């Protein structure tokens, strides 16, 4: 079979125009599918930015919370109750809310304020400028230097602003693992200062962050929290909940699905049609091979090899092109919301195999139907 496959390979790649057209079609389709799904996974990843950055093992919240952005305040006794639960090593409150900042030039800018537990500062970001203990200083805030940083006019340690008529001072600049999705700069401060500066409803604890004594305690903690009328999610479960919200509640998932399907159809149209044309143009050659004594199974093998080779080469080029573009974009925008994930690689791979399968199926049908007698008749 090795020689026959080499024959198939030469018949394919030596037809440079057709082979290039096939590769362009597959590469374009893979690129589109990869790019769209990478954007989607990037958006999902950014949507859970605070969950990732704060890094708590267990998040306790109101059962009605759909995503981290829509926290619902919980009474203080929830924190006390969680702290007293079996299997809990420690538990701290977290404030997460929005506010308007008045900048020195008089402009207003919306921000996300994260209030960390005053005692432990659990979930604090890594500072690139300033000292973490300065967060306790009067009006102290830490600003995250992400893609939205410049919206606060690139503040540095000592920069001042107003937040609900309260004076605020930048005491540190931080970097985080994942930037936020919603185009808002992020400020960290203490929990007490956050609830003091920002007008709030009756209950102020957005989330209770808990750490289990051992991984086996997670289930036990969940049951105890449920008995209290609240929900405890692991970090990954909360990330998944955020993802589900964006996939199913915002229409984002449907849009991505439609775009991916369109990419698939475009790829299938270009590649399928070009491959079919390639088969049609070589129909006489396949007929001649059949007349000379090639078995039908060998002809099928040749066509499948040609389709698979084109598909896999196109897949590699498509993935490479997508990676390159995302890298280039990230050079300009550090928090560019696109990431290549195993699921998107797998999805594109499956799609490209389906394209190769359908293209070769049509070709195989034509080749198997050709009668060598037609070659004789000319």
């Amino acid at each position, binding site marked *: 079979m*090795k*020689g026959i496959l080499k024959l198939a390979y030469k018949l394919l790649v030596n037809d440079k125009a057709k082979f290039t057209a096939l590769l362009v079609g597959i590469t374009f389709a893979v690129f589109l599918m990869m790019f769209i799904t990478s954007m989607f996974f990037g958006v999902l990843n950014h949507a859970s930015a605070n969950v990732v950055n704060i890094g708590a093992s267990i998040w306790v919240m109101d059962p009605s919370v759909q995503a981290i952005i829509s926290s619902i305040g919980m009474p203080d006794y929830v924190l006390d109750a969680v702290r007293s639960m079996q299997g809990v090593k420690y538990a701290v409150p977290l404030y997460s809310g929005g506010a308007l900042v008045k900048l020195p030039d008089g402009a207003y800018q919306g921000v996300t304020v994260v209030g960390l537990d005053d005692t432990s500062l659990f979930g604090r970001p890594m500072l690139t400028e300033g000292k973490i203990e300065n967060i306790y200083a009067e009006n102290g805030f830490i600003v995250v230097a992400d893609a939205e940083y410049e919206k606060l006019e690139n503040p540095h340690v000592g920069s001042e602003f107003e937040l609900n008529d309260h004076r605020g001072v930048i005491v540190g600049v931080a970097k985080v693992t994942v930037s936020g999705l919603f185009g808002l700069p992020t400020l960290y401060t203490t929990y007490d200062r956050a609830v003091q500066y920002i007008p709030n409803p009756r209950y102020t604890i957005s989330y209770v962050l808990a750490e289990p004594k051992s991984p086996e305690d997670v289930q036990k903690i969940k049951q105890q929290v449920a008995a209290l009328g609240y929900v405890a999610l692991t970090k990954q479960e909360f990330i998944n909940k955020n993802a589900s919200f964006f996939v199913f509640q915002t229409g984002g998932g449907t849009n991505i699905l439609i775009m991916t399907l369109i990419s698939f159809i475009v790829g299938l149209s270009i590649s399928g049609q070009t491959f079919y044309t390639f088969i049609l143009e070589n129909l006489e050659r396949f007929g*001649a*091979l059949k007349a000379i004594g090639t078995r039908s199974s060998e002809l099928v093998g040749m066509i499948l090899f040609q389709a698979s080779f084109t598909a896999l080469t196109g897949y590699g080029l498509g993935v490479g092109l997508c990676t390159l573009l995302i890298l280039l974009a990230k050079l300009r925008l550090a928090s560019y919301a696109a990431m290549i994930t195993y699921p998107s690689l797998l999805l594109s791979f499956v799609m490209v195999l389906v394209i190769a399968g359908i293209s070769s199926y049509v070709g195989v049908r034509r080749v198997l139907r050709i009668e060598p007698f037609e*070659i004789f008749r*000319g």
Partner: protein
Amino acid sequence: MPNIAIQATGLSKWFGEGEAKTMAVRDVNLQASFGEMIYIVGPSGSGKTTLLSLLSGILRPNSGIVTVDGVDIWSLNADQLADFRLNKVGFVFQDYHLFPRLNTAENVAIPLILRKTDWEEAIREATKYLDIVGLKGRADLPPIKLSGGEQQRVAIARAMSGQPEILILDEPTASLDSDTGHAILKFVHENVLNSNRCIVVVTHDARIYEFATRILKMEDGRLTGTESGVAAMGKG
């Protein structure tokens, strides 16, 4: 009779059914021996190519038996029939059917490659056959760079490379000028025909009749007569 290469008995083939039924070959009986170069001649539409296809395992007859070297070829299944064609029959098609994306040596090597011969070995072997047909220096060229006569010789080299017992040539001079056509058939007669090989040629080119051992005349799907090549040439 051990030297019988091809034996056809009661061979018939028709296309279509009912009023559209067309008899292409009608109750043909023929016998060809190794060492013979048989011509099948007749006007267009007389059934020559159909008969050639029936004899070479390309087209299944509606009735009749074809034995090649003692084997009833139409009792074979599809894969066995493909193997039979690959191992026993060499084809020179009317339009050559060379592969434009392969070079000349690779074209000639196709039957060897299909027989699972190692690629490099097949190319080496193919070059020998190109040498035999006088085209060794053209091994790396694509067929499109060759003249009609050279392409015909490549097709013959390809048919020979599998060392078949039966060689089928369909209108071998149809696309060639008379001198080239004559030279090609002379070459086949002198270099390809031997006591272990039977060559069947379909043609209506009277200028090459001199190389025939026997000439079978066909009309309306029937064999209407047999003459020696030299006798036929004399009448032409």
